[in-house]
């Protein structure tokens, strides 16, 4: 049916169709059902697997699944210990959640572009975007959460006065207070924006290229989509890793007292 739509309305319509969310609601109170559903699904997969391992975790010889999970946990733990020197019960689990969740959401990218939307159209669902990280709402949801955590920990560690001092008096001293504030605001706001946009941009572009490849004749597609998918395995892991590491770095900066 997707190909019929494509033939009927041309490549632009095909692309737009693939990049249109399944929406409910009006104006601001619009919910992208597909983003919510697939992010919850991948989140559930992550939680289910890790909870299962955590419940049966033994200190004896681990099974293959526990081994795999432990490998990820130790990898994340090593990253956290590298950058963050304080003690926090939140940061390591946060980093683990970000890494695994983002990775799984990104991995939805590797499914054939028409597979899930095609199946959905059989059930009368007109639009479906299967990769939640190609939705700005998803990436900004995470980066804004991280931003609030940065603010929270900055105030918690340095105290309201310490935080205010840092915002007003650095880097140029008391005589340039407004300028300092402006600089600091830009610096702080750039963190969530760059964090959210980086992930969104990478995944959106990647998905777009998959869609473009899908527009080519069928005999050209494997030659292009296979290398791009292989390359994308690297991209999805790398983006998950970058999001995690930057979160750790930002939060450890928030913990540092000047």
């Amino acid at each position, binding site marked *: 049916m997707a190909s019929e739509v494509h033939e009927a309305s041309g490549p632009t319509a095909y692309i737009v169709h693939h990049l249109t969310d399944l929406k409910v609601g009006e104006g601001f109170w619009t919910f992208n059902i597909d983003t919510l559903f697939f992010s919850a699904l991948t989140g559930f997969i992550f939680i289910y697997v*890790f909870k299962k391992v*955590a419940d049966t975790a033994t*200190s004896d010889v681990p099974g293959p699944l526990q081994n795999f999970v432990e490998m990820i*946990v130790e990898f994340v733990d090593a990253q956290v210990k590298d950058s963050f020197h304080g003690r926090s019960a939140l940061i390591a689990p946060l980093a*683990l959640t970000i890494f695994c969740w983002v990775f799984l959401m990104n991995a939805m990218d590797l499914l054939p572009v028409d597979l899930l939307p095609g199946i959905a159209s059989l059930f009368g669902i007109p639009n479906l975007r299967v990769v939640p990280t190609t939705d700005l709402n998803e990436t900004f*949801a995470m980066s*804004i959460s991280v931003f609030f955590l940065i603010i929270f920990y900055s105030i918690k560690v340095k105290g309201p006065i310490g935080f205010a001092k840092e915002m007003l008096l650095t880097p140029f001293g008391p005589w340039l207070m407004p300028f300092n504030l402006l600089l600091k605001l830009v610096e702080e706001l750039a963190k969530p924006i760059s964090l959210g946009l980086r992930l969104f941009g990478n995944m959106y572009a990647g998905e777009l290229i998959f869609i473009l490849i899908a527009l080519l004749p069928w005999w050209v597609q494997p030659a292009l989509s296979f290398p791009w998918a292989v390359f994308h395995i690297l991209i999805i892991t790398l983006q998950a890793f970058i999001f995690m590491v930057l979160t750790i770095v930002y939060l450890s900066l928030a913990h540092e007292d000047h």
Partner: protein
Amino acid sequence: MSIIATLIGQIITFGLLVWFTMKFVWPPLMQALEERKKKIADGLAAGEKGKQSLDLADKKAKSFLKDAKNQAAEIINLAQKRANDLAEEKKEAAKQEGERIILQARSEIDREIHQAKEALRQQVGALAVSAAEQILRREVDINKHKEIIDNLGNQLGQA
């Protein structure tokens, strides 16, 4: 492509995921890892200890073996000495026995010589008497000279 209420939903999802991980996933996993770390460390320490005690036992066994060898050598020496002594004793005893036998034989010989001499003397006496009888039969009455002949016989017997 606009920021809409989905954002709020995603923030809630994200928060729930982080909360769940923090509460139920991270601590047991970290605990298992710590426990395993400790177990491995303990195992390595035990292995090291076992190796040391093995070395010790090896040394002990070697010293035992050495002692046993020394003892065995000592016992063998003693036994050899004892055997030598015994052989010497036997030799001595045999020598004495031999001498005793020789002495006995010698005395036997002496006795037999004596007996032979005695017999010879009696025979010679008898011979002399018979010879004298034959000589004297012609001129001497046996009854007349009986005393002389007896006397002579006695004298010969004494000699």
